[in-house]
C-alpha cells in the first residue's frame, strides 16, 4: 500500500489546442518504481501527455494525480516530477556543476552546500571530471548525463524523459539506454520515457503505452504488447508482425512464428516474392490468397538447407495459439 501511494495516474486527461485535439481523454495508471515508455508515431500526443504530466502544458479537462494528490494545477517544480528535455536544454552560460546546482540556487541553498550536492549527482552519472566545463564543450552523451543529473537533483518521484536518446548516434544510444535502466533501478523511482522507437521501448520498458491519434492504443508489459498486439496499428508499429485477414477476422502473427514448409503441406500455400538475408535470419516474403503478403523469418541454417528463390511455391504453417485476433 505504501508503494501504491507513489503512483502516477492520469484520469481522463484531455488537451485541446483550439479545435485540434492533442490528447483525447487518456486514463492510465503508472506503477511506482517502474519504467514506462510512451510509444507512438510523431504527432500522436505522447509528448503533449508528458508535458502535461510535467506541468508545461495545462490540461483542458481531466486530472493528473501523483501520490494520491491532484497535481494538475501545480507549477512544474512543486509536482514531484522532473523533466529531461529533448535537446537537454542545458544553460549554455553555466558550467556543468552550476547547471546541476541550478534548482538548489533557485531555492536559496548556499553556494558551498549546493556545489557539494551537485557534485554527488555528477558522480552518480560519472561526470565529476568535467564539472567545470561549459555545455558547449561536451559531447552529446555527456550533455545528456548532465541533463539527467540536473533533473535528478530535485529528488523527483517521477522522472520524465522527452525522447532522450534521439539526439545520439546509434552506438551511444544503446549504451545510454542501458545506463538509463540502471539509474532507474538504483534510484527506485518511476521513469516515463517518450520515444518513437519500438526497439528502444522494448529494451527499456517494464510497461509500454502505445499511443495513436491522441489516444492510448494499447498498454501493458513490454512482452505482452509485442507478443499479443490488440490492434492492427500496434502490430504494424511494433514491427515483426504479419497482419493478415483470415475467414475469422484480422489476425496478427509474429514473422518468426511463421514456418516455411514444402508446397501443399502447410496451412496455406504461398508464392515467394522476395528473399532478404539479414544475418541471423532470412526474411522470406510470400504472397498468399487474397493478394496478401506474409513475411516468414527463417533461421539462416534452415533457409540455406533448403534455399528458396522468388517464384517458388511454399507452404506456410503456424501454431493456432500464436495467432492473435485484432479488434481494429
Amino acid at each position, binding site marked *: 500500500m505504501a508503494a501504491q501511494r507513489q503512483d502516477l495516474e492520469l484520469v481522463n486527461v484531455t488537451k485541446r489546442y483550439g479545435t485540434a485535439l492533442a490528447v483525447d481523454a487518456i486514463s492510465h495508471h503508472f506503477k511506482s518504481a517502474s519504467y514506462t515508455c510512451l510509444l507512438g508515431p510523431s504527432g500522436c500526443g505522447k509528448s503533449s501527455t508528458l508535458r502535461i504530466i*510535467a*506541468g*508545461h502544458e495545462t490540461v483542458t479537462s481531466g486530472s493528473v494525480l501523483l501520490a494520491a494528490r491532484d497535481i494538475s494545477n501545480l*507549477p*512544474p*517544480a*512543486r509536482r514531484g516530477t*522532473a*523533466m529531461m*528535455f*529533448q*535537446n537537454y*536544454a*542545458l*544553460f*549554455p*552560460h553555466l558550467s556543468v556543476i552550476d547547471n546541476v546546482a*541550478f*534548482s538548489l*540556487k*533557485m*531555492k536559496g541553498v548556499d553556494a558551498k552546500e549546493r556545489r557539494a550536492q551537485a557534485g554527488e549527482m555528477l558522480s552518480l552519472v560519472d561526470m565529476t571530471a568535467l564539472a567545470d566545463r561549459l555545455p558547449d564543450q561536451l559531447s552529446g552523451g555527456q550533455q545528456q548525463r548532465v541533463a539527467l543529473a*540536473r*533533473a535528478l537533483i*530535485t529528488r523527483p518521484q517521477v522522472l520524465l524523459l522527452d525522447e532522450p536518446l534521439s539526439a545520439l548516434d546509434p552506438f551511444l544510444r544503446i549504451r545510454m539506454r542501458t545506463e538509463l535502466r540502471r539509474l532507474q533501478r538504483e534510484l527506485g523511482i518511476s521513469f516515463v520515457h517518450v520515444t518513437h522507437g519500438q526497439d528502444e521501448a522494448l529494451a527499456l520498458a517494464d510497461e509500454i503505452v502505445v499511443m495513436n491519434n491522441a489516444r492510448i492504443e494499447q498498454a501493458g508489459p513490454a512482452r505482452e504488447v509485442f507478443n499479443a498486439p490488440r490492434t492492427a496499428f500496434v502490430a504494424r508499429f511494433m514491427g515483426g508482425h504479419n497482419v493478415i485477414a483470415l475467414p475469422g477476422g484480422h489476425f496478427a502473427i509474429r514473422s518468426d512464428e511463421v514456418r516455411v514448409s514444402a508446397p501443399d503441406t502447410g496451412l496455406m500455400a504461398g508464392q515467394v516474392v522476395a528473399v532478404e538475408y539479414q544475418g541471423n535470419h532470412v526474411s522470406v516474403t510470400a504472397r498468399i490468397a487474397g493478394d496478401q503478403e506474409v513475411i516468414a523469418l527463417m533461421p539462416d541454417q534452415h533457409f540455406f538447407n533448403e534455399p528458396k528463390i522468388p517464384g517458388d511455391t511454399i507452404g506456410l504453417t503456424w501454431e493456432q495459439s500464436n495467432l492473435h485476433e485484432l479488434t481494429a
Partner: protein
Amino acid sequence: MERLLKNKALSGWLMVSPLAAILMFFLVLPIVMIVIVSFWRATEFSIIPDFDLENYQYLFGSAVTYKVFFNTFKYAAITWALTLGIGFTVAYFLAFHIRSQTWQIALFLLCTIPFWTSNIIRMISWIPFLGRNGIANSALISWGVIDEPLEWLLFSDFAVILAFVHLYTLFMVVPIFNTMMRIDKSLVEAARDAGASGAQILWNVIIPLTKPGIMIGTIFVVTLVMGDFITVRFMSGSQSANVGRLISNDIALLAYPSASATAVVLLATVLIVIATLLRFVDIRKEL
C-alpha cells in the same frame, strides 16, 4: 596567368581589396589627416603646418575641457541607462510575450516607423511640445497639475536626454531582440522545471544570455551620444555643451588644429570605453 588565378592568397587579397580601399580612403586617411592637423599651429588668420603640442597643452590645461568631457559622459551614462531599461523591456515583450511570429514582425516594424523621418525633424518636433506655451505645459496647466509653465521642460538637460532616448532607443531594442530570439525557449521551461520564479528566470537565464545583445546596443548608444553635437545644441538651446559642440565651435572659428586635437582625444576616449566594454562580454558569437 592560369597559375596566377589559382593562387589562393592572391585571390583572397583581390577579394578584400575593394572594401579595404574604401575604408582606407574614407576612414583611415581622414583620421590620419585629423591626427596630423592636430599638431599644426593656428593664428587668427592662418593655419601653419608644424609639429607642435600646443593644441593638446591648451586642451588638457583648460578647465572647460574637463567640464565638457564630464558633461558628455553624463549624457552618455544617463541615456544608456534609460535606453537599456526601455530597450530591454520592449525586446523582452516582443521576444517572450508575443507568441505568433506575424505579430512579432508587425510590432517590430512599428518600432521602426519613427525612423522614416530624419533625426533632426524628430528632434525639432519636441520643441513645440515642450516649449513654455507648448502642449505639455498647457495640458498640465489645464489639468491643474501646475500653476505656471515648467521652465525645465525645454532647453535643459532634461530635453537633451529626452531627445537622445527618443532617437536612440531602437539601437538598443534591435540587438537585444535579436539575441533574445536566439534563446532556446526550452531553457525557460527547464528553469521553471527547476523551480525558478519569473524574476529568477529573468535574472539567472535571460539576462546572462542577452548580454552580448546588450553590449552591442550599448556600443551603439554610447558612441552615438558621445559623438553627437546637434541634439545638444538644439535641445539645450545652446546652454549646455558636450565635446561635439566644442569641436563644432572650433570649426566655426576655423580653428581646425584645435578642433582636430579635441577630435583625437574624443576618439581615443570612445575607443577606450568600447575596449573596456568588450573586456566584459564576448560579442563574437553575435557577429
